[in-house]
């Protein structure tokens, strides 16, 4: 082998190593860019629904996310995002479900039901049914809270809603609603860290849709509560006014009766006064009558005595007249005059 051949071969070899170095450097850059792309894609789309979901290269996404203890999952959730339950949304959903089941079972605390279902309630009737702890209210056709929780979990875990299969995208949205509802049971519901975790898990689009819908629901319920408050206030005022009118009427009725009672009582008192005057008058008249009768009796007695005295005096007069006649007769005899016969006097003359 000539020297030239050897130099050329050496240069060739050197070029080979240079190419290999450059190719590997390029590969590393490319891999790094690819990782960044993958990470960014996950940031935009969230975790895969399940182990089978593949990326645009046909590679299973979950496998690329690495172990849950570190790596890309931790990076995705960010600081304060908590620990991931696994590389898929279903891992997260199952973990949350396991955590919630003791609280939202048949014998769950009504307050927990309310906290869980508040972001999902989209009508005042449903909200009212939650607040009233599942007791039925007039016109309320919503499910019981426990059934509602079961439906939400079924949609998220099994991808079924009312016995109808959901598309992966619909299931992702169902998972978003479930996870957002579940955060209501934790401290600081709706806090930025919880929002960030949801965004990391389901992606910003689904998270924004979910939370926006929740905000709309809550605002709508607030509006409905305000409407109901106004109605209740109106009803109360009507009832209150009606009762006040009733009471005023009763009060006036009572007052009229009291006035009537007083008027009649006054009349009785006047009558009593009149009666007392009449009684005094009667007693006075009776007394006068008694006195008059006494006077009459006295006068009668007096008259009787006078009559008797008159009679006696008349007797005496008659006797005197008789004596006088006898004496006159005696005188005539003595004087020799024939006595003249005279009628004998009587008392009645």
């Amino acid at each position, binding site marked *: *082998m000539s020297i030239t051949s050897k130099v050329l*071969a050496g240069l*060739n070899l050197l070029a*080979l190593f240079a*190419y*290999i170095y450059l*190719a590997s450097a390029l590969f590393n850059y*490319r891999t790094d*860019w690819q990782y*960044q*792309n993958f990470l960014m894609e996950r940031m*935009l789309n969230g975790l895969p629904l399940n182990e089978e979901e593949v990326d645009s290269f046909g590679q299973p996404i979950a496998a690329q996310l690495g172990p849950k203890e570190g790596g890309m999952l931790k990076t995705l959730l960010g600081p304060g995002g908590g620990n991931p339950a696994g590389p898929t949304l279903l891992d997260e959903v199952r973990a949350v479900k396991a955590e919630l089941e003791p609280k939202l079972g048949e014998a769950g605390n009504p307050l927990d039901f309310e906290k869980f279902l*508040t972001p999902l309630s989209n009508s005042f009737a449903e909200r009212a049914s939650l*607040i009233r702890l599942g007791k039925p209210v007039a016109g309320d056709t919503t499910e019981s809270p426990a059934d509602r929780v079961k439906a939400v979990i079924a949609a998220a875990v099994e991808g079924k809603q009312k016995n109808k299969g959901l598309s992966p995208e619909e299931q992702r949205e169902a998972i978003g609603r479930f996870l957002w509802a579940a955060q209501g049971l934790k401290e600081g519901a*709706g806090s930025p860290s919880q*929002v960030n975790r949801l*965004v990391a898990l389901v992606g910003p689009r689904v998270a924004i849709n979910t*939370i926006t819908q929740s905000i709309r629901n*809550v*605002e709508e319920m*607030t509006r409905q509560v305000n409407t*109901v*408050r106004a109605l*209740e206030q109106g009803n109360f*005022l009507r009832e*209150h006014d009606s*009762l*006040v009118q*009733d*009471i*005023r009427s009763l*009060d006036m009725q*009572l*007052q009229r*009766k*009291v006035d009537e009672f007083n008027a*009649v009582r006054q*009349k009785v008192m006047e*009558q009593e006064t009149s*009666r007392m005057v*009449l009684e005094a*008058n*009667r007693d006075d*008249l009776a007394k006068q*009558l008694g006195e*008059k009768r006494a006077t*009459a009796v006295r006068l*009668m007695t007096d*008259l009787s005595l*006078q009559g008797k005295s*008159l009679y006696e005096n008349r007797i*005496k*007069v008659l006797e*005197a007249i008789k004596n006088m006649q006898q*004496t*006159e007769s*005696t*005188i005539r005899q*003595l*004087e020799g005059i024939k006595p003249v016969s005279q009628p004998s006097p009587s008392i009645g003359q």
Partner: protein
Amino acid sequence: MTALGKFLVFLTATGAILLAVMSYSSWVTSYDFTDRAGKEGAPDGTFLGLKQKIEAIQKGGQLGSMSKGYTDALGELTLMEKNRSEADLFYAAQILQLEKGATRAVPVTEVIRTKNGVELNPNLTPKMTVAKSENILEPGKDRTMEAKANYPAPLKKVEVDIGEVHKAVIAETKKIVALSNEISNQGGQKGLVTRNAEELDKIALLNVELTAMRGNLINIAADLFMNQKRVKQLNDRVGELGKTSGPRSEKP
């Protein structure tokens, strides 16, 4: 060709093939993972599209306001429900007080509508004085509006009282009528007034009669006196005649 030459040729050929494959592979997939914009019709780097999407989301500002928007909305709902609950309690308490009244010491109050809802009227708290007339529920005090349930009993009582006083009126009327009958001529009976008048007439007649009787008595007494005097005179004459004539024969 020496063995070394052969090896080097083989190595070079292998490297060339490897590079060719890598180049082919890169060309076939032709993914540009960078954030560079494509030039002359070439597609943009995929990272650029992703970055632009993220930036669009960030610029939308939705993520930043999500938490505040939700907590604010939830806070407002909770506040509204708390207010509603308090209002319901207030309404129930007021209606209960109007209907039944807790105690008579807390008379019925009135509510007014304010910008914050409905509340007690401070000008009428704690009582509504409706009249200063007699308060039969609490004698000696100003009357106040009572709960609805506090009215039937006094109403019934005052009705009974009215019935009683009406009976008293009737009884008094009867007594007055009886007294009037007793005094005046009513009911076909002579009253005391008439009887007094009759008695007075009787006394007057008796007085007249007595006066006449006394007159007669005086006249009789005068007659008696005169007669007795005449008798005495005649007796004296008889005595004189007896002395002067003695016993005389009776003329025929």
